[in-house]
Every structure is written in C-alpha cells, then in structure tokens.
C-alpha cells in the first residue's frame, strides 16, 4: 500500500481506547488525513483517542488546528483526545501555543 506523502497514520484499538501512531510531518497538506482519522474515531464513539507523535518531526498551525478541533469535538461528546510522545519542534510548538496543558497528560 502506498503511504500518503508526508504523514503515515496507523490506528490500533485496545481496552477501550484507540492509539493513533503518526509518522512524518503534519502540515497544510497532510493535516486533512489526521483530521479525518481523529474525527472518524471520535464519531465511532471511542472513549479515548491517543495520538502518538513520537515519530513526527514537524507540526504547523494547521496541524495544531486539527488537534484542537479533535480535542473540542471529543470533549463535546464526553470522550477525550490526548497527545503523547511529542519532542523537539513538536513539543516546542505545543509548549509555545500553550496547548501542552490541554493535550498532553502528565504521566
């Protein structure tokens, strides 16, 4: 199967939560696939969606927009979206935008 250019998404479900492993860059071109993926999982009623960004090297404002909208969409439906594994640029952008406090669960 061909991977979408820039961002690969892999979803596994376990014990009442969905883990989305992202690889690549989240930008204007690739953020739509992440949006579809997260919206789909939330609409299917997943109580908790975890987005693993360990293998993501860049996330721009359109990526943040997708994460924020998913977060709000989930909250409105009584579920949750959490981000893990952010490091480097991605961690920086989450920290700078103050989104770390909503999206990242302290372990």
């Amino acid at each position: 199967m061909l991977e979408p250019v820039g961002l690969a998404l892999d979803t596994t479900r376990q014990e009442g939560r969905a883990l989305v492993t992202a690889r690549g860059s989240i930008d204007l071109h690739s953020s739509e696939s992440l949006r579809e993926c997260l919206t789909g999982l939330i609409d299917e009623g997943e109580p908790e969606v975890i987005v693993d960004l360990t293998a993501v090297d860049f996330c721009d404002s359109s990526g943040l927009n997708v994460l924020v909208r998913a977060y709000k969409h989930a909250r409105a439906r009584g579920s949750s979206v959490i981000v893990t594994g952010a490091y480097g640029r991605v961690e920086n952008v989450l920290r700078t935008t103050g989104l770390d406090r909503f999206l990242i669960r302290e372990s």
Partner: protein
Amino acid sequence: MSTSGEMTERSWRGWMSFIAEASDLLAGTLDPERTLALIAQLFVPRLSTWCAVYNDEADPRPAYVWHTDEEQSDLLRHRLITDGPPPQGPPSGWHGEVACTIPLIARGRPIGAIALGRTDRFSPDHIELAEELSRRSALALDNARLFAGQTAMSKALQRSLLPPDLPEVPGIEVGVVYRPADHTVDVGGDFYDLFACKPGPDGARRWRFAIGDVCGTGPEAAAVTGLARHALRILAGEGLSVPVVMERLNRLILDEGPRGRLLTLLHGEITEGGGLGLVCAGHPLPLLLSPDGTVVEAATPQPLLGVLDEVTFEAGHLTLLPGQVLLSVTDGVTERRDGELMLGDGHGLEAILADCAGLSAGAVAAAIDRRVRDFGAEPGNDDMAIVVLRAAD
C-alpha cells in the same frame, strides 16, 4: 475544426502544433497587458501582416498594435482610430489591404476585439485558424483580467490588515518588516499593530503593540485577522488591561463558531520610560537582546486564542533598558525552511539576534529579514512579520 481542404496535411499539422504552442503561451501569462501584446504577436506574422487588439469593442483606440513592419505601426494606429476598425465578417478591402475584425468572446461575453490585416488575401484556412486562435486568446485575456482583479482585491485586503502608519513613541525606536507570502492571490494571516492608547490613571502616556498570526490563509483567515486587529484597537484604546483584552478577543473568536480560527497573539503595553507589560498567547516568544549580546526569552507561553473559553491570562512585566531590544516575530521567521532544517531549530533565532547587538531597531529588523531570506533558498510559503522595539541609548 475541419480543414477546407486547401492545405496539405503537412502544413495542417504545422498549424495544429502552432495553435497548441500558442495555447501554452497564452495559458502561461496572467498579466492582462502582457496577454494583449502576446495575442498580437501570435497572429503576426503567421496569420496576418498586422494585428490590433481592443480591450473594449466600444473604445475606438486599440490597446495594442503590432505590424510586421514596425515603421507602419503608427500610421496603422492612426487609421484605426480615425476610420474605426475594419468591419466584422469576411475580410474585405481596407486601405489597399484586406482586413477584418473578430470579436473576442469569453464565457459567452464580449470582452474586446481583434482587427487583422493582410497585404494579400486571407485563405479560408487562415480565417478558420484566426477564429480558433481568437477564441483561445479571449479566454486567456478573460482569465488574466479575473486574476488581476483578484490580486488587486487581495492586496487591498492585505493592506487593510496593517496599520496605516506607526506613531512616534518617545524613547523607543521601532523597526518593522512585513512580507506577505506572495502567491499574489492569497491573503496571509499575519498582522502587527502599534498605537497610542488612553493615558493610565497616573496620567502617564501609554502605547500598545501587537503581533499576531491567524491559522491559515485566504479570505476566511483574513476576516478573523481583521476582526482581531480592529477589536484589539478598540478594546486596548479604551484602556482595558492587556490580559483582559486577550480574554475578550478569545471570547470574540470563539463566538465566531466554525468561522473562527486559531489566533496566536503577542500583545503588550509600553509606558513612558520603557516599561513593558506582555501577554504571549501561543505566539513565538519575544526575545530580549542586551547591548552585550545576551539574548533571553521575554515572556512565558500562555494558551493561544480561539480554543477554550475558560482561559485567563496574566501579564509579565519588564523594563526595556537603554540599548535593549525586544524582538517579536511570527512563525514565518522561525519556521523558515532549508530542506529539513528550520531557522528556529536549536535557538537559531536567538543566535541571529545575538549578532545584532549595537544595531538600531530598523537595522535589527532588516538584519533578521535578510538572515531569514538567506536561510532557505526556497521562498517561504508563509507570510512573516518582524517587530523590533529598542530603547534609545
């Protein structure tokens, strides 16, 4: 298109490739003036001895005249103006030549005309090819005009998002660079502002500045930029504190519902003597440069606007000492790319700013701008704004 049979198959093939090349050339220009000239140059000399292009059928003055013999151009233009263009329909005698006018029709609307003349006769194939080329020319010209209209609108919109002029702030030098993302059509989401506001309770004069970035580009983002910039001026002008202005703006954007966009915003108050009160909401942190070249972050991150309704903000305070520089940028600077590398990686912007010790505010802004443009060979696809405040020595 069918051939009248006068041409050999070989010359017909030659004409078809000419029409194809002409179409490529026409599709490649989006400037109305250049398209007019190109149209005339495509007709001459292959299909006609001369060609005049009219922007508007009602206007007797041709917008562009092209003749195989350049010395004839002025006489031809004069004739066209005094006698009017040759009649439409089959080519007929005109000043000792054979000429006709073909209306330019695009999307069912007349958008101009071309007049063509030959010293010898027009063969039926020439006429057919001229009509074919005029259809393609009309569409290209119409596209170029639509594009020019959209570009003008984008530019006007972009201009409206920036302050008309910047006030003098006693004791503070201001340097600003603003570069839209180009692409001529898209309006970016970056903005900045600097304006005087009501004196404080102590009677001291105060100014506010802001630099912000609305997520995304295009008219939807520009609408939010406009909303934020004007609301910020009004709220801050009324003397509401910096954190309260941020809270109100956040509310305002959330109230826009699905039309709202994420907004990162650095907003600050400047008081006489160099006092600064800053809130940095999701925006790249401002940097403070001292005359000895040390650079530190001048604010702590707070959440960006347009996400959650229960956010409150807190202002951080500092004093800009003589010779110190406060640098504020949008992410078009820090996310400037050179392949896999970004300018902001590994405190890249801090290092660039450290090299700017001793420069005036305008020179710092220009130096950062130059370093950004030198950083990535590829032109940025994001707009960028740079605002530099420097306390006079």
